[in-house]
């Protein structure tokens, strides 16, 4: 299935892009992040991330469906 991924902050820099569309067999958000870590050399441990699917926060074991838009949320530091 095809998933769109949005990157921010350190993930954006390490992936060298803001977003990408990707064919994947990953069935959960966590599996997708593991695959992307292989591809892009991400250094943020999955345990330190949050994720959103289609603009709503989800758990890392949330399932993926074809066409989903996934945003990975590195540790936040606003304010």
């Amino acid at each position: 299935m095809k998933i769109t991924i949005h990157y921010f902050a350190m993930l954006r820099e390490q992936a060298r892009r803001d977003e990408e569309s990707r064919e994947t067999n990953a069935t959960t958000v966590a599996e997708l992040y593991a695959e992307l870590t292989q591809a892009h050399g991400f250094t943020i441990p999955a345990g330190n991330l949050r994720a959103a699917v289609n603009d709503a926060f989800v758990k890392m074991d949330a399932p993926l469906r074809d066409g989903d838009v996934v945003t990975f949320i590195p540790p936040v530091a606003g304010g």
Partner: protein
Amino acid sequence: MFELSERPLDGVKLRATLTEPAAGALVIFEGWVRNENEGRPVTGLFYEAEPKLCASEMEKIAGEAKAKFGVLGVRVAHRVGQLAIGEMAVWVGVTAGHRDAAFAGCRYVIDELKKRLPVWKKEHYADQTTRWVGM
């Protein structure tokens, strides 16, 4: 109620949105870029945010502040992009009938914002290095 801005935040305009006859207290928090962090000289900050998740999460936080403290108005703005020392990174204004609620509500909003809002910060140091804070 919430905005992300690539330009300097305008405290006067933000405050003007909070006036109402039942409000007796306004507490404002402003976060400024300071010239050092944890002992390291800082020359500037870069902020980045995810707009949709920021907006929905701020709506939740504002609702929580109203429910917990009975505050009347909540208004928040966060700057994004490259900021110099002294620039305002965040503005939080909370009104209430009396000061107890306004202080508690403002403190709650900035604390939750810092924990939950999808905003990221890269510090630029005097020695030319940079660091994504918290990563």
